[in-house]
Every structure is written in structure tokens, then in C-alpha cells.
């Protein structure tokens, strides 16, 4: 944690609140999963909150986001309201993808959120194309593409890095390196474990940052975004982070020991920022209680919204397989 830096009261509390919203939302999702309200795959972001929250601070409303299948944090930090997000988890038609996508496929046109992609690396080529369209149509936007370090093993990663650099596209590659692709540690998957170095092969600036520190992530993302907006082409940002919980709800975590998880929990981004803000007199007990209460209300409203949501009629099953016109 960068102890000497101060985010300021308002911004520091904003970062804390955004991370807490994700943590609390997912904790509730986990409970709702146990209760059978949510089914399918559920990949929790617990521990990685600083990455999305930090990166999103550097983006503007016109910028695009391409997400992963572990994207609740990316979606909330991008500003997708919690109600439609929870309704999506419930499979209700009030969900942000009308219940067609579920946890892994969150879409939001208004916020240029182009989906959680459940094929590892599958979103990277898409991000290249969105960035290409922005440039060709002279829109002053960039695309932030999130992926895990497991995606780096896919051919689509290398093809996309090459194309983005070759065409000098406005594209921010955000690698969420949580050290495991499902159960396989980086050292067993990568000949070069220093992932940020891979950008150099594509003549792309690359930087690794402490992904447990939201302020460090934000600062790095702002530098990267400034470079991209200056027209210098894509930028690669590796955020070194850790997933506190299992890969999904079906994972017994046989591949890592509890001590390792315990050591990383010492670096919890939320506890860390909370402590820092207290130390800097930027967060009082009342402030924290207020934040927590606000999030509890938002979450209660979101669950109520999802519970009250309706199921799409089965007669709509084939709707949107093909579209009659291009949505505007």
C-alpha cells in the first residue's frame, strides 16, 4: 500500500465504497447461490476488487469495456446498477442481459459494456475491433479489455496484442493476474512468468502494478490512458492480484494451501485502504458505518428488485437469435 500518498477524503471514500459494493454484492450472491436462487457458474472476484475499481476511475463514459466471465466487479465498477445485475443473476427478464447471459455474460449498451466472455481470451479480438471502429469513426474513445493471466496462454492473446500494436489502436489491455488459471499456477503454465514483459515483444508499453492497491492501480491506469489518448497506441497493464475464494462454486481448492490464502488476505485491498484512510484521518467510524449502511440498502433494494422480477415468457425463447435491425 502506498502509505505516503493521499487520495483525499472524497475520492478515498469513493474507492472504498466501490470495492465494498463489489465485496458485499458477491457475498450476497454466494448466499443466494447456496439458497438456490442463483445457479450455473458463479465466479467471485473476492480479493481482486482494487483492479476494476482502480482502472474504471481512469475511463470516461464513452470508453468501452470488454470483460471476463469473472466480471461482477468490472460491471459494478463500470456503473451498471446493482438491481439489473442481481436480476440477471436470478435469470429474470429485468436483468441487464434479460436473463439470457447470467453471471458470465453481463452486457450494457448504455455503458459500452461489451460483455463478459466465458471463452478465455475470446474477448481480446473483439476489443481490437471495437477500438478499430472507434478510430475509424473518429470517436475519441478507448477500449479497456480485461482478461486473466490464463488468457495470456491463448493464441488469441498474442494475435490481438500484435494486431492492436500493428494498427496502433486505442486499446488498454488489463491483465488481472491472480496467479491461477483455475487451478494451475502461473509457474506451471508460463515459460515467462513476468507477464508484463510480454508486451515488449509487440513494441507495446507495459507496466506491472500492485493489484491489491486501488490507488496504485488507478494511478497506473491514468498514466496508461493518457498515453493511449495521446495517440501512442495500445498499453499493457498487468495488475498483480489474488482470488481469495474458489475459482467457482464447484472448486475444492486442492491446488493451493490455506497458508497462502491467509498470507494474501493480509493484503486485502479493502482492509488496506480502510486502514490507510483511518491513518490519514480521512475515514471516521461514522463514515464507515454510513458507507456500509448505504451499501446494505442498495443491496436490499437489488435483491428485492430481482425477487420481484419476472421470467421471460418461453414464447420469447427465439427472440434476438437474429435481429430485425441494428440497435441504435
Amino acid at each position: 500500500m502506498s502509505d505516503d500518498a493521499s487520495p483525499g477524503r472524497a475520492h478515498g471514500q469513493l474507492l472504498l465504497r466501490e470495492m465494498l459494493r463489489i465485496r458485499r454484492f458477491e457475498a450476497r450472491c454466494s448466499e443466494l447461490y447456496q439458497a438456490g436462487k442463483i445457479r450455473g457458474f458463479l465466479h467471485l472476484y473476492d480479493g481482486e476488487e482494487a483492479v476494476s475499481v482502480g482502472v474504471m476511475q481512469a475511463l470516461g463514459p464513452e470508453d468501452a469495456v470488454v470483460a471476463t466471465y469473472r466480471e461482477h466487479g468490472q460491471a459494478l465498477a463500470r456503473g451498471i446498477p446493482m438491481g439489473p445485475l442481481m436480476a440477471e443473476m436470478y435469470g429474470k427478464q429485468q436483468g441487464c442481459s434479460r436473463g439470457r447471459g447470467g453471471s458470465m455474460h453481463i452486457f450494457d449498451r448504455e455503458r459500452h459494456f461489451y460483455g463478459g466472455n466465458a471463452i478465455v481470451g475470446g474477448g481480446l479480438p473483439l476489443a481490437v475491433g471495437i477500438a478499430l471502429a472507434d478510430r475509424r469513426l473518429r470517436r475519441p474513445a478507448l477500449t479497456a479489455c480485461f482478461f486473466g493471466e490464463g488468457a495470456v496462454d491463448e493464441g488469441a492473446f498474442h494475435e490481438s496484442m500484435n494486431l492492436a500494436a500493428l494498427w496502433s489502436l486505442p486499446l488498454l489491455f488489463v491483465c488481472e493476474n491472480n496467479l491461477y488459471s483455475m487451478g494451475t499456477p502461473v509457474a506451471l503454465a508460463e515459460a515467462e512468468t513476468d507477464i508484463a514483459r510480454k508486451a515488449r515483444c509487440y513494441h507495446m508499453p507495459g507496466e506491472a502494478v500492485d493489484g491489491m492497491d486501488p490507488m496504485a492501480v488507478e494511478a497506473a491506469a491514468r498514466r496508461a490512458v493518457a498515453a493511449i489518448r495521446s495517440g501512442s497506441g495500445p498499453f499493457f497493464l498487468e495488475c498483480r492480484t489474488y482470488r481469495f475464494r474458489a475459482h467457482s462454486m464447484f472448486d475444492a481448492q486442492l491446488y493451493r494451501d490455506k497458508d497462502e490464502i491467509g498470507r494474501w488476505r493480509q493484503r486485502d485491498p479493502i482492509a488496506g485502504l480502510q486502514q490507510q484512510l483511518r491513518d490519514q484521518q480521512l475515514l471516521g467510524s461514522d463514515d464507515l458505518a454510513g458507507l456500509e449502511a448505504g451499501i446494505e440498502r442498495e443491496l436490499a433494494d437489488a435483491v428485492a428488485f430481482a425477487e420481484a422480477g419476472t421470467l421471460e415468457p418461453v414464447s420469447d425463447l427465439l427472440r434476438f437469435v437474429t435481429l430485425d435491425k441494428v440497435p441504435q
Partner: protein
Amino acid sequence: MSTAAQRLSYREACRQAIRAAIQADERVFLMGEDVGRYGGCYAVSKGLLDEFGPERIVDTPLSEAAFVGAGIGAAIGGLRPIVEIMTCNFSLLALDQILNNAATIPHMSGGQFSVPLVIRMATGAGRQLAAQHSHSLEGWYAHIPGLRVLAPATVTDARYMLQAALADPNPVLVFEHIMLYALEGELDPGVSAVDIEHAAIRRPGRDLSLITYGGSLPKALSAAELLAAEGIDAEVVDLRVLRPLDDATIMESVRRTRRAVVIDEGWRSGSLAAEVCTRIVEQAFYELDAPLARVCTEEAPIPYAKHLEDAALPQPEKIVAAARALVGGRG
């Protein structure tokens, strides 16, 4: 009007189609391997780079997943890409993007995003290119909901299907058979558009229906001529649109002729021909006077040696034999 009829090759028709599309809409561009400086593996885009420049005719590295995926992203982002995959054999390297992104995003996003993308690719065998360069994979793609799959088999369709495909808000795959590029035909000056909904009857006939598409169409027409010499009057149906299939035209033909042979350059098991036959059985079973028949590619990798390649593929003689067997039971 007939004096103005233009005689041209299928290849030139494809090129004219791309040229017209780029001229008509500034969002349209062509992207693929060797489409620019080289002029296209099958010379379809020859000269277009000089005419339109590198923003509209975009050479890509050998990165099928990335440039097909980039086409999908660009389409979602507001452009109208024509992506050329050199041959359908290489489309397997982009299959994930086509199936998991192009075909699913409209539905999976609850209709928030469409993918108005056209992917052109060469398909088929016949040039002794051996097993890895001779696939006919259009039947696989026709399996996938969300895609429209076209197989132009005439110069008119090669010339005009593209503009209809670009007007479709959904992803459209166009399969151009490698043996058709040199085919010559006349463009009817009275035609300036074609639909991408319907099958077409290319030769009317009374005794049986030869149902086919793409590179097998000329073979089916040859077979019909051979059958005519034997007194068998074959109708030839060109499917044109492989997904969604035009059941009405197929059934209308079969109800009249009461016999059908389906000709498909894909392998027999799980083929497009199997789908067409099943639909006929489902919808017109009691109007058939004979079992259905199929002429497909033999179930082996396509060999290099000419005599073996010829033996593997549908040929007019095989179609004639299948037709004769059906009509033999006539009366």
C-alpha cells in the same frame, strides 16, 4: 436490354460486388489475409487496394481468430466489415469467434448488440489441394443459430448477394466454391438485386428434383442434361441460402416431382444433405414415390491424387446413377 448483358466470371462478379459495396457505404471495408497487395488468394480483390487504399482494403497478419474477432467487434462498433477468410479450412482457427461471439452476442445480450458482419470464404475441393485445403464446411456453419449462410453458385448471385448480406443486421457467411471462380455467365441488366431468403429452381423438370448448392450446381445441371438424353426430366433446385433453409421451395418442388436426390460436397454423416432429407421426410413423406437419395463426398479426407479426388467428390455420373435408381421404380 439483352444487348447490354454483361458476360463476366464469377470472380469478377465477386470483385464488382465488393467494389460497389465500398463505394456505396463508407463504413464498409474489406479485411483479410493477402486481400490487398497480393490481390486475394483467388484474385477476387485484385486492383482494389489501388482503387480504395489501405483504409478500405486491409491486409492482415495470419491471425484468423484476431481478425475475424476484430471484424465482429468492428461490426458491433458501427462499421460494416467484409472479412475474407482465405479458405474455409482456415476458418477453423476462427471458429470460436464465429460461434461464441458473432452468433451468440445478439441473443446473449438480450438484443442489445447486433453483429452486422459479412465473412466471405472459399470452400470446396477439385484442385488437388489435398486433405487440409479441400474441406466443405458450410454445413457445419449452417448448424449454428444466429448465422445466415449463403452459397452463391451463379454470377448473378456472386454479384448481388453481398449487398443483401451487408444490409442484414446479423452475421452472414458467404461460401464461394473454388471451382466456380473461373465460371463465366451473363449478368442480366434487368437485375440489380437478389434476395437472400429463397432457393431457386435453375432447371424446371417433372420427374425428380436434384437439390443442391454451390460448387455442385454445375454438376447437377450436367447430370440433368445427361438424364434428359435418357428421357428423364430432372428439376434442379439451387438452395442458395443454406441457413435458414427455404423449406417452401424445396417442398413445392418435391411435391411436384415426388422424387429427390440431394447433392452436397460435405461428408454424408451429419451433412446438410441429411438435414434437407429429414425436412422432406417430415413435411412431404406421403407425397414421395421413392426413397430419398444422397450424393455426398465419400467419408475420407480428400486425397491429392486426381483420380482419387474425383472419386471422392460428387460427380455428374454419380448423380445420374442415383437419379436413375429412383426413377427406375417409376410407374
